[in-house]
């Protein structure tokens, strides 16, 4: 299959005009002993053959009823989202360097920034980061830059991937990272009060946390501010922002996390949508692209990338971050999704929670232990004897029940993080229950 529109004749005559005897002449600067190697790849395919081959591979993936969350969530993506984001003027464009021909992208991202501010309760949101984990890492770098302090405290109830990415970035930039233990499914706030001191740049808390438990962000913010540290509230389930008190309202300085739940597919992990939002005093230090409103020379309202002097293409080694390409189309999808569901987002969020509570209730009725008493949103931890075995048997019968926690938390043996969303029906749960009774 080829997408090369020039014929051999075209190429020949163009080479002529260039003054080259052949195409090879143009590669004269490549050392001859390594030029034109024999690259071993499968033989080329036509589009038809490629689709056939890909379908065969796709069909080896198994579709089950998935009660799995842990940072990525199954939510219904309305048809309008695919339809509009597939318009090629949106997806075949690039960074809006020429604002005069990019108002579509710029306006949509301006709307995205607005939505993110409203949902997180913050003053400023950027045009996106790669994912929630890297958004958190960059939020921490922001806090370190702003406070000029080098110690970071992070709750053990923050998503393990997020903590791992944070640890990598912290090691790379010589930042000291300390984990604050959890208790009863939430950050141990007492322990936090004991550990924190005036050398701490920021405290990271996640809510709902990895266990699905809703944390007391206000308390964490209070403790952090007493020591002139920033409070970073992160989230993996953006849907929760439709129902729970926003990080901004709780006194957090920076809100960051994962936006995949808004109009993007789980798709084996990506592409995702990192969200980073902050109070207005951090405007000059927030990384990533910012779209601002302005006017054109005819007085028309329009949009443009602004405050670019923070970014790598101008500040280079003194930039707030090296980020260039972000997750533009995923942000567009989220914007379209939020435009479509509007304030019904609250209902979707409530349905999530109803499904999860019903699921928990049914599992508890079967005799399994609810591990944490605290209030939760769409995810909870349940203890089942021989959990791994049970998971395997259920998988053979069309159900994926949660994530086994002992890889991340060895003390939580036989514990599963189970998730239900608006995509989980009552029938699904009742069928699951019947299955569990037979296992």
């Amino acid at each position, binding site marked *: *299959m080829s997408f*090369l529109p020039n014929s051999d004749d075209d190429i020949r*005559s163009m080479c002529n005009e260039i003054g080259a005897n052949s195409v090879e002449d*143009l590669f004269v*600067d490549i050392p001859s002993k*390594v030029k*034109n*190697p024999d690259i071993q790849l499968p033989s*080329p395919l036509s589009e038809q053959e490629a689709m056939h081959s890909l379908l065969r591979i*796709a069909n080896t*993936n198994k579709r*089950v009823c*998935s009660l799995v969350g842990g940072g990525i969530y*199954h939510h219904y993506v309305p048809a309008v989202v695919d339809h509009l984001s597939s*318009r*090629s003027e*949106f997806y*075949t*464009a690039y*960074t809006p*360097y*020429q604002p*005069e021909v990019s108002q579509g992208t710029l*306006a*949509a991202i301006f709307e995205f*920034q607005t939505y993110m*501010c409203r949902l997180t309760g913050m003053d400023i949101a950027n*045009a996106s980061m790669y994912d929630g984990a890297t958004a958190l890492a960059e939020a921490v770098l922001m806090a370190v830059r702003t406070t000029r302090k080098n110690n970071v405290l992070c709750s053990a109830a923050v998503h393990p991937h997020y903590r*791992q*990415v944070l640890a*990598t970035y912290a*090691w*790379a930039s*010589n930042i000291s990272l300390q984990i604050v233990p959890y208790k009863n499914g939430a950050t141990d706030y007492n322990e936090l009060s004991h550990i924190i001191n005036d050398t701490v740049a920021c405290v990271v808390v996640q809510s709902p946390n990895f266990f699905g438990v809703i944390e007391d962000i206000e308390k964490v913010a209070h403790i952090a501010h007493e020591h002139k540290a920033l409070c970073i509230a992160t989230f993996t389930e953006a849907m929760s922002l439709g*129902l*729970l008190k926003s990080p901004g309202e709780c006194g957090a300085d920076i809100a960051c996390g994962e936006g995949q739940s808004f109009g993007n597919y*789980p*798709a*084996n992990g*990506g*592409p995702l949508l990192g969200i980073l939002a902050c109070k207005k005093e951090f405007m000059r230090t927030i990384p990533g692209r910012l*779209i601002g409103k*302005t*006017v054109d020379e005819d007085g*028309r*309202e329009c949009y*443009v990338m602004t405050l670019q002097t923070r970014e790598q*293409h*101008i500040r*280079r080694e003194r930039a707030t971050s*090296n980020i260039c*390409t972000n997750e*533009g*189309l*995923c942000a567009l999808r989220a914007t379209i999704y939020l435009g479509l569901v*509007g304030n019904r*987002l609250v209902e979707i969020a409530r349905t999530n*929670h*109803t499904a999860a509570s019903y699921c928990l209730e049914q599992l508890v009725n079967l005799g399994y232990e609810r591990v944490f008493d605290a209030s*939760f949103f769409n995810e909870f931890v349940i203890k089942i004897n021989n959990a791994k075995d049970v998971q395997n048997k259920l998988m053979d019968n069309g159900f994926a029940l949660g994530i086994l926690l002992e890889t991340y938390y060895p003390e939580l043996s036989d514990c599963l993080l189970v998730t239900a969303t608006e995509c989980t029906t009552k029938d699904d749960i009742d069928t699951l229950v019947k299955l569990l009774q037979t296992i």
Partner: protein
Amino acid sequence: MVSTMQTIFSLHKQGRNKYTVPQFGAESYDPIPQHLCRGELNLADVSEVDVVRHYRRLSSLNFGVDNGMYPLGSCTMKYNPKINDAVASLPQFTQQHPATIEELSQGSLHIMYSLQEMLCAITGMKQFTLMPAAGAHGELTSVMIIKKYFETKGEKRNIILIPDSAHGTNPASVAMCGFTVKEIPSNSDGDVDIDALRAAMDNNVAAMMLTCPNTLGLFDRNIMTIADILHSNGALFYCDGANLNAIVGKVRPADLGFDIMHVNLHKTFSTPHGGGGPGSGPIGVVEKLTPFMPVPVIAKKDNQFYLDYERPQSIGRVHSYYGNFLVMLRAYTYIVMLGASGLKQVAEHAVVNANYLRVKLQKHFNLPYTRICMHEFVINDEGMPNGITTNEIAKRLLDYGFHAPTVYFPLIVHGAMMIEPTETEHRDTLDAFVDTMIAIKNEANTNPEVLKAAPHTTPVRKVDAVLAARKPVLKWEE
């Protein structure tokens, strides 16, 4: 009259939103306490019809590759095959959860593993990871690997060399890992100044980052010498693979002496740019750097794919889960359709197209480097009549239905305009571009005012970036 720039928020009206949420069919027994809940949500309530019309209208204000030629240098705005998108929409892929990938998505792991192998074959590297979500992310991950390598060896090296023509993400990535940047000048031919490099080399230098071909669109003729100088001093050689489109299939970066590199799937491998992402920036390394690759590594045993976390010397995680899978899927589809011969032709056609434009335009515009270029080349506004600038030329091109090339980069050429046609433009389009550039040059002579006031026919005209920076308004308010 609909204002050009009305946002979705101005369409808000109580009662218009009829989006229906399915009823669950049972009551929740565990309501969330009121004090943990937010007050009223204030998103826009609009009808579905409004959503569709609004975003359709916004899309018409945009210019993408599907609109016309988009010669944005170093971005490789090639045609995005639609078959890639069709594959990436299959629910057998989109509905799969990453946490159960080993048990339920062996097909997806097969795609990722094969893509890794194919990228190794194309670049000559020993191992690839697909985790980084963009080129800059790949650069950062690579600098972390370089850091870990020397840490493990017990060598304290804190300098990374970067040519003065480098893309801004290079020094930014270096700084994020605590290294110091030392800039190496380019000589008048556009190659790295070898004497300056030798002078800068010492045991403090961890690595050099080089874009290959470089950001002037030129293939550095001393590349193997550079590799030698670095290696004989125990330093590493990093390849910024943003410009791989010029050499894919023609040479393997590992054969040139590179130890570590990133590739951009959204450039060389045809995945769409998305208006600012999602991209994907996989990195490849030679054998000695494999222990430091991020976790998890996608591995294969007895025909089963699995995730290997047993990597004691790994730099750790750099992204949640595995990276931008649907982007990898598109790149995989592209590579299996083209094969090695197809990829080689991509580079050949890209380079022919660029040189064709170069020789046609050099009669009318200043060409700082006159030697054979690769897939892109740089002109500038030196000698333009009536003080017409690169920016003014770029804005006028928009009036003629072309997207402007990259402007004011690389920094070492004053008023640079970097033109990369890519291989998916045919000769007629290239001729039209040349004719347009000549017409603009004529306008510079005879009617400079029309250039200074450009663009004229775009949906909005020159935007006030100064106002946007002095008085930032970053979200919609009533």
